[in-house]
């Protein structure tokens, strides 16, 4: 069982599932295109 400590030296915290899901969704929502030998990020949505 995971314990959550509040002592400053001993954290055992985790990000929210929603935060991780947002990150994964962001990764799937963008693509890369080449222009003038450079890569650029574009929004696929």
């Amino acid at each position, binding site marked *: 069982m995971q314990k959550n400590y509040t002592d*400053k030296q001993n*954290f*055992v*915290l*985790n*990000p*929210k599932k929603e*935060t*991780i899901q*947002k*990150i*994964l969704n*962001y*990764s*799937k929502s*963008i693509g*890369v*295109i080449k*222009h*003038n*030998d*450079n*890569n*650029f*990020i*574009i*929004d696929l949505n």
Partner: protein
Amino acid sequence: MKKNHISDSILVKSYIDGDERSLEMLIKRHKQRIYNFIYSKVFDRDLTEDIFQDTFIKVIRTLKLGNYNEEGKFVSWVMRIAHNLVIDHFRKNSRIPKFESNNDFDIFSVLKDNEIDVENKMIKDQILIEVKKIINLLPDDQKEVLVYRYYNELSFKEISKKTGVSINTSLGRMRYALINLRNIIKKQNISLTS
């Protein structure tokens, strides 16, 4: 001994090649360490969530743009990004003065429109950060001319001496830099106005 343990290096390569599940594995493997590192600096859960998210957005963008160099451990790289974002947060916060009005004196009675108010300064700072990010996407020779011209305020004659190319070449690089900047801003749908 764990069997079938896939190294970070292989997961990163797999993600760059298009496997989104590899990113998920990397995050799950290292989330606790990175999250707790951020929290140990800011001591605020909501802020930690934001910085954690921004950290991985930077990671994703760097990997997808092909700008990641496997020179050290993946997690050390991610921690450096998180650390820099924490510093950015503290820098922004230290610039924002906090004023409170009381019944005797209203600070807003002396802050005039011709002074940059806090909100406009924050917006301006954010715009400058976005501009720097976009400039970093340019090819090195174009970035160099642009930085010399706008940040160091050098003439094209001075730029050509520094870079060892003709004035015409410097002018050409500047022209292409500006064209590329416009294209990037348009393609990424960035708004640089307040």
